[in-house]
């Protein structure tokens, strides 16, 4: 890593290599234990041409109750240069009761760059019975390839204003999982064949689709965290192998 600038509570680990694999693994750590009313995290990543990076979040991102009424913001800006590759498999985002949170994620790629990106959103501290008790949760996720916006996933949940359990919205699902793959080699993925391998069972639904350009998106709606996360890990690893 030629440049690292960090300020507590955010910290990046030193770079780690596994054997002869040129992919560098970096852990992203958040030492505060969670975001509190009005906190702001900014994460900016720039991948130099031909670099291969795997970023791992060390723990779940917890959003504490907004006792001041202020929203916590997280902004992630990623630039991936020619022939570079990024894998990002974050932990779960957990908005506690009364939390207010907004995350704006923007990925900018070249035609030749690759990204495999995942995210999981929890309904709250489910095991404590906190289910959709947060105040607001907003996620704006954008992918640009050569300056063209190819995907915009925008969720604006305010459970007090609109029932998320309605038909067509989240229904009985509690966890939302997403995987995004953008790569010049995406046409090597047989989406139909891949779709047939997706595990669908009581309480776990999945879908896969081609986006504009060289991109694939998988989405899960699950009642239970463990099975959703296991299935996402499997799909994530399978896609990582393919491109």
């Amino acid at each position, binding site marked *: 890593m030629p440049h690292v600038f960090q300020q507590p509570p955010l910290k990046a680990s030193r770079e780690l290599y596994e054997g002869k694999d040129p992919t560098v693994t970096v852990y992203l750590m958040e030492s505060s234990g969670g975001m509190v009313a009005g906190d702001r995290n900014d994460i900016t990543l720039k991948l130099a041409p031909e670099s291969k990076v795997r970023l791992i979040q060390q723990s779940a991102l917890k959003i504490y109750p907004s006792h001041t009424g202020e929203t916590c913001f997280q902004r992630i800006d990623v630039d991936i240069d020619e022939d570079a590759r990024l894998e990002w498999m974050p932990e779960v985002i957990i908005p506690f009761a009364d939390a207010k949170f907004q995350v704006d994620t923007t990925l900018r790629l070249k035609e030749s760059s690759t990204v495999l990106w995942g995210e999981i959103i929890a309904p709250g501290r489910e095991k404590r019975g906190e289910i959709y008790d947060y105040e607001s949760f907003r996620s704006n996720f954008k992918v640009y390839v050569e300056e*063209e*916006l190819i995907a915009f996933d*925008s969720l604006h949940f305010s459970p007090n204003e*609109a029932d998320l359990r*309605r038909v*067509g919205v989240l229904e009985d699902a509690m966890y939302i999982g997403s995987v995004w793959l953008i790569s010049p080699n995406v046409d090597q993925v047989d989406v139909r064949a891949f779709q047939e391998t997706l595990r669908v069972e009581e309480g776990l639904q*999945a*879908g896969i689709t081609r986006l504009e350009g060289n991109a694939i998106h998988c*989405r899960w709606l699950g009642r239970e965290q463990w099975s959703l996360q296991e299935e996402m890990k499997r799909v994530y690893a399978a896609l990582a192998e393919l491109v």
Partner: protein
Amino acid sequence: MKRQKEDLNNHSSTVDTLTDFSLLQLFQIHDSGFPIGSYTHSYGMETYIQNDLIRTKEELVDYCTSYLFQNMVHGDAILIQEAFDATLEKDVEKLLELEELCGAMKLAKESRDASVNVGRQFIRTISPLQDDLFLAEWKERIDSQSIKGHYAILYGIYSAVTGTSKRHAVLTFLYATLSGLIQNAVRSVPFGQNTGVQAMHKLIGPITEATEFVSTLTLEDISNNALGIELASMQHEYLFSRLFIS
């Protein structure tokens, strides 16, 4: 008489009043005889029907209400409104941005393709009826494949150049889309015609409410919370047998 005439003049100068001509033009583009292919798209609803999740009139109304408020209001309806304003300002850059956004936010391939296919059929059908230069230029961009031609954007442009009010453009778009869904449900569930009529009648209140709400929204409010429907639209691509293209 004089008084009445003045009143009429006042009305015609407000943005929400339509001339008879504009009103009938709106009727025509939403007529079931207008060939834009809405009867071939379910936008994911067919997956719900095949999973046996829409069996009663109440379930159909519930489904349509979610589609209305959690998908259309925060998606296409905002884009129509923005495209309408951008057309009046002749702001082509803005329209191109909206066109890109419209494709990017429709994650499920079939719903995205449907938006383009309906859009292209729409422009093909209306262009012989209109000699508006701005609309012709937009068609030129579609023909030369510099843009895709998403329906919501075209519809916003068309509404602006034909002198429709923004509110009526949104109102009738929401009505026509839900009416299309209901007719498709009548054919595939199957429901009787009367069930369809009653379901649509129940949605009229929510549609007017939704239209009012859309007028308070901007591009910042674009979102799609109807993840169940979006997932169903992704799954629709792989259904074994299907009546609808999307």
